């Protein structure tokens, strides 16, 4: 479960942000999750709550904001939905993307022109949106 590392990173940033904001207790954590990262939310959630134990984040409510992924082709300008392409991939390919989302450039092509040269418009990465 490499979700543990991602959870650890989120906790690390949340603690820093809490300090910056002068919070002595955190109750809500807002996390933005890009579809491409294909996170196992249950595992991620579990990891988060385990790692938060004994910190000012303990028992915080985690609010996930899941963002659909869209890509734009630099060759033909076509904007396309990630999910459709993702569903066609093998389990191994899906797993590679789960670890290193940019490997989409290896396994996916622009459905309009076949180009390898496209970019994420949105839906990539895990971000800390806010804490309260």
């Amino acid at each position, binding site marked *: *479960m*490499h979700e*543990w*590392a*991602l959870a*650890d*990173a*989120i906790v*690390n*940033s949340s603690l*820093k*942000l809490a300090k910056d904001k002068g919070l002595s207790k955190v109750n809500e954590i807002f996390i*933005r999750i890009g579809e491409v990262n294909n996170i196992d939310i249950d595992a991620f959630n579990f990891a988060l709550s385990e790692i938060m134990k004994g910190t000012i984040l303990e028992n915080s409510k985690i609010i996930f904001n899941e963002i659909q992924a869209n890509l734009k082709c*630099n060759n033909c300008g076509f904007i396309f939905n990630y999910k459709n392409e993702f569903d066609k991939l093998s389990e*191994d*390919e899906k797993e*590679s993307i789960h*670890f*290193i*989302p*940019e*490997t989409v*450039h*290896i396994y996916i092509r622009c459905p309009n022109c076949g180009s*390898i*040269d496209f*970019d*994420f418009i949105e839906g*990539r*990465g*895990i*971000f*800390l*949106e806010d804490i309260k």
Partner: protein
Amino acid sequence: MNFLDPRVDYIKKRFEKIDRVIGVSSAKGGVGKSTISVFTSLLLKQKGYKTGLLDLDIYGPSTHIILGVGNKKLKENFGVEPLDIDNLKFFSSIFFTDNKPFPMRGDELSNAILEILTIVNWDELDFLIIDMPPGFGEPTLDLLRLIKKIEFLIVTNPSIISLETVKKLIQTLNEGKYKILGVIENMKSTEDDLIIKSCKELKIDYLGSIPYFYDIEAIFGNVDTMIESNVSLYLDRILNKILT
């Protein structure tokens, strides 16, 4: 996006557990960065140091070929564990690319690098050797930005063309006050002292040279032979200068 990217701070935290981070660089391609990265990390682990080798040349990864490593599934443990090669910890993007071409623009490359630095769990290391790609783009800029303690081992061959680019790298690193361990002159086949002289002018340590070995690739893939090879003999003398 104005949201916090948790990777930036997490990478710094991961690297706190690594004593020395050495980027093997030259900005010029084909001078032996990958070869020297591999031999250096093998020699360091042979000396008993906890050593890691990270291939950051994602467009043209080579260290797995020199090491003779094929596709492997990595274990997961607070991220992914680097491959253990007889005590050398090794990570290359090839474990996730099926050894296919990986073309992408710089911002995507930067994202891939940040992801790798975030998820690879090196744990504690004495040395992490980073095999750098040529150029002056995201891989270099991101390391300079994220790993301030990085030290540079600069590789060139005895060529005016390589020297020109290497000089530019040194100038950039000097300006940013990054630590330069010195210059290795690789593939030396004459007594020409172009590189020695230039190091003097640039006030950079000339660490020594490695001869041109005709059949160097014949030993690639055989770790034990590589450690016993003449390449290692020469490199070892050089490394002793930076181990103090």
